[in-house]
C-alpha cells in the first residue's frame, strides 16, 4: 500500500467513480437539493452552492495532504454526477483506510448505486492497494446507515462516545465497522450477489435524458 495518491476512475455496471474536481460543483448542487442528505453527516454538501464549494475544497485539501482520495459518483445511464464518496484517514503505516464522506441524491437511496460504489472502493482498496483493513463509521443515531453498513458484511467493532464535535456545539457518538482483507472474499461475494439483481435507473425517475435508450445502455 504505497499509493492512494493518484486520482483514479473506477467503473462499474451502473456507476463510475471519477476523480472529484471543483468543476463538478454545479451538477452536484442539483443532486444535493434534498436537505435530508447531509443531516447526519459530519461535513456534507450543505444547502447552498457556497456550502458545497467549501465542502469540495476541504475534501481536495485533504487529498493534497495525502489523507484523502475523493470521487464524484456518476450515474452511467445519463452521465450525471449524483453524489460524492472518498477514501479518508489513509494510514499508510498501518495499511488501513476508511471509506466515508458518502452522500447521494436522495432519489437514488435504496438503489444499487451505493452498493456498487462500496464494491468499487473496497475492490480498489483490497485488490489494487492491498490494504489490510477498511473502516466505515457513522453517527450512532443514523440507523439507516448502520443497517446499510452491516448489510455489506462489515463487523461492528466499537462505539466511540462523543468523539466528534458538531457545528451546533454538541458531540456525536460514532460507530465504527471494519472489514479485514481475510474477510474480503466473503464480502465481495455478497456484494456481487446483491449487484446481480436487475435494476433500471429509469424506474427511479431520475434519468433526465431519453429514457429507453439510456436505461438499456446502463445495463450493458
Amino acid at each position, binding site marked *: 500500500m504505497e499509493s492512494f495518491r493518484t486520482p483514479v476512475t473506477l467503473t462499474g455496471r451502473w456507476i463510475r467513480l471519477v476523480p472529484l474536481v471543483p468543476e463538478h460543483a454545479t451538477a452536484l448542487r442539483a443532486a444535493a437539493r434534498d436537505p435530508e442528505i447531509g443531516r447526519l453527516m459530519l461535513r456534507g454538501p450543505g444547502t447552498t452552492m457556497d456550502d458545497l464549494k467549501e465542502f469540495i475544497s476541504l475534501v481536495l485539501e485533504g487529498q493534497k495532504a495525502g489523507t484523502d482520495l475523493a470521487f464524484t459518483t456518476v450515474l452511467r445511464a445519463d452521465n450525471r454526477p449524483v453524489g460524492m464518496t472518498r477514501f479518508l484517514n489513509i494510514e499508510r*503505516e*498501518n*495499511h*488501513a483506510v476508511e471509506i466515508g464522506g458518502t452522500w447521494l441524491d436522495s432519489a437514488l437511496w435504496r438503489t444499487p448505486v451505493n452498493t456498487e460504489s462500496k464494491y468499487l472502493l473496497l475492490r480498489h482498496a483490497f485488490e489494487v492497494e492491498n490494504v*489490510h*483493513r477498511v*473502516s466505515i463509521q457513522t453517527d450512532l443515531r443514523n440507523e439507516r446507515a448502520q443497517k446499510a453498513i452491516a448489510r455489506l458484511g462489515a*463487523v461492528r*467493532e*466499537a*462505539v*466511540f*462516545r*462523543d*468523539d*466528534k*464535535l458538531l457545528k451546533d456545539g454538541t*458531540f456525536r457518538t460514532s460507530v*465504527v465497522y*471494519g472489514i*479485514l482483507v481475510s474477510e474480503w472474499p466473503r464480502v465481495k461475494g455478497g456484494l456481487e450477489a446483491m449487484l446481480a439483481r436487475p435494476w433500471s435507473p429509469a424506474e427511479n425517475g431520475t434519468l433526465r435524458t431519453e429514457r429507453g435508450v439510456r436505461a438499456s445502455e446502463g445495463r450493458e
Partner: protein
Amino acid sequence: MTDIQFRPPVTLKGRYLELVPLERTHAAGLAEAGRDPEVWRYLRIGPGHPPSLAEMESFIDQLLAFQAAGELLAFTMVLLPERSLVGIIRFLDIDRPNQKVELGTWLDSKYWGSPLNAQAKLLMLRYAFEVEGVHRVQLKTDSRNLRSQKAIERLGAKPEGMLREAHLVRNDYFRTSFYYSILAGEWPSVKRRLEERLSVPWAGRAPS
C-alpha cells in the same frame, strides 16, 4: 470555548513523580528504565526489546518530531525525591477540532503495581480536563495485554470496543486494539478514585 493547546513546555508535579518535558538527554536514564523486555512487548512503537542508548535516542527523536508537528505532548516520569527516570507518558493524537486527546504510558516494570501509574494518570488527566478543558480522553491497548486492560479499567475508563488488526506493530503483526474513554462529565468520579488510591503511604513515603 477556546481551543485546546497541549503545547510544550509543560511540567506537572505530584508527591511521587514530576512529569517533565521529554528530552534527548533523558535517553540513558530511560534506556535503564526500559531494560525489561516485558515493557516493550505490546507497544506499537519502540524497539520491541531492551533498548540500547542509540535506540532510545532515536525513539525519543521520533516522539519529539511528532511533538513538533503538534500531534503529541511527551513527558519523562521522574521519581521523587531521587530524580531517577522511570518511564514516558504522553498525550497523542491531539485532536483540537474535536477537543479530545489520547493518553499513552510505559513504566519501568520495577514499579508495576506501585502508585506511580495512578499518580501519573492523575496529573495528566487533571491537566487535560481542568487546564486544557478537553471533552474526551481516550486510552487504547493491545487485546493481548491483560495487565494494561486491568489498569485502564481500574481507572474507571469505559470500554468502547475494539478495532481489529488496526495497528501494524514493528512491521510484523497487525494488532487488535481495545479502546476506552473518559468523558469530561466522568472526570470528577475518576479523580476521586485516583485520589483515594494515592491516599495510602507507599515505600516509606507519606501519601500525596
